[in-house]
């Protein structure tokens, strides 16, 4: 089932990607082709198996709750595009 322009616009908004009209139509066609290939997933019988989210075999890695040195405020803010005092400065969240 091909992606509609509405699907592409919806996904782009979910991902917070501002796309041009040209990008939306190009990526839409390319994603259609890739998703068509993905139907090969259905060639594999997965009824007897569970999902693999990670292959590390580790479960619940614990450590003692001990405070340790971490980034200073100055170093954490050093890459900020805009700051005000000890804060990151951003535009209005609500209109």
């Amino acid at each position, binding site marked *: 089932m091909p992606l509609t322009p509405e699907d592409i616009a919806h996904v782009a908004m979910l991902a917070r990607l*501002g796309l041009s009209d040209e990008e939306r139509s190009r990526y839409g066609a390319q994603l259609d082709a890739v998703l068509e290939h*993905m139907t090969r997933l259905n060639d594999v019988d997965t009824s007897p198996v569970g999902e693999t989210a990670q292959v590390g075999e580790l479960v619940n890695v614990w450590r003692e709750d001990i405070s340790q040195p971490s980034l200073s405020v100055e170093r954490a803010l050093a890459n900020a595009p805009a700051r005000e005092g000890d804060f990151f400065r951003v535009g*209005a969240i609500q209109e």
Partner: protein
Amino acid sequence: MSFTGGTVAASAAALRDGGVSPQELLTEARAQVERVDAEVGAVLTPTWELAERQAADAQRRLREDPGAASPLCGVPVALKDVLCLEGVACTAGSRILEGFHPPYTGTAVQRLLDAGAVVIGKTNCDEFAMGSSTENSAYRPVRNPWDRSRVPGGSSGGSAAAVAAGMVPYSLGTDTGGSIRQPAALCGVVGFKPTYGRVSRYGLIAFASSLDQIGPFAHTVEDCALVYSAIAGHDPRDSTSSPTAVEDPMEALRAGIAGMRLGVPHEYFGEGLEPGVRLAVEEALRVLEGMGATLDEVSLPSTGAALSTYYIIAPAECSSNLARYDGIRFGMRKEHDALLQMYLDTRGSGFGAEVKRRIMLGTYALSSGYYDAYYRKAQKVRTVIAEEFAAAFERVDALVCATSPTVAFPLAAREDPLSMYLCDVLTLPVNLAGLPGVSLPCGMADGLPVGLQVIAPRFQDARALRVAHAYEQATGWHRTRSPLVAAAAA
């Protein structure tokens, strides 16, 4: 004596017998970068001042106690530009990280620094390590040192080309679906992706966290083993790093392969394999047999679904990981009064086409209504793929096959995303199962290098290196060098 195009082991020996100093190695590395990198494009950010200080420090360590110094002490290295080194610009090949200076150093890099490494710079790569040709770098493409009209592979193309062009004897890259092994194959060097969990990912800019792994490029398997020994091991700062003890690979290298059972997965010898690649790999199989290994055909029936599995799981993880590039705490920001518009403008203009495609694909696969059909299904196929490898390893000790179905291809030859994704069809199943894999040179086709891939069970990294080393020592393909190295020696 020139060390351009030389090995880590040769540099380490000469540093100890007084044949060369760290400063001299650095001077040679810099001369080669300045001579050839304008046409290769491997180094994004050189770090010559830092390297000078590190060379002086290494010199002092080697003079005070040469026996205690690591084999990497005083030897130049280049780092893929997704690995954080405090205070040195780190772009991940993306405009969105332009101007970003990491406030800390990642664990693998720190372990090299502790060993006395001399870092000459950060290497070019596909944006956020997404690609198979390094053409997705937002800065410039990398060109193959064997033929500058062709790609070096990717995504760690800069790290592979830097070694192949003789700029450094070794480098670090990262491998999520083949991004170390495939460029190693296309550039005629050795590349090693360790078992998932062996090398800490702390300080690695994340692409797909369940698949990413850091590893070395070098001219020999022994050099890769030396680097692996230095960077592998548990790190409490990466909760997926394994606490199990790391086997000494140097010991294993000496063991040879007589009596070993090697599996040949027949799905990996399908029609997509170029005739020249097939020829070189089949010849390599005969060599391994001649050395006393037994070859057994094995089947990995779900190989055909691995590409689809990977291109659901990796983009899904990337769409989540790359949410952090929001223009607020670091990197680029397209200023706007309203926050939402700032997000859209920053991410829309900061990311390149392939990154945007993968974020879209991953977001779609995770979105309501499609999650079960794509993401959950892919995770189940991942289980099947891992179980098929495990079943094969009950019969054989390791698997051998081609690394890349093709030799290096011309720039701009694969504009269609799916044709580019097919580059990794022989490497990405290894990441899905978390296995160690080596690629090493096994011949030439049309004047371009061909790579042989050795795959071992989880945590049998030393065994993968052992098979690769035995083949390499028996054939000598590791002594071939790109024309850019030969020209330096002339």
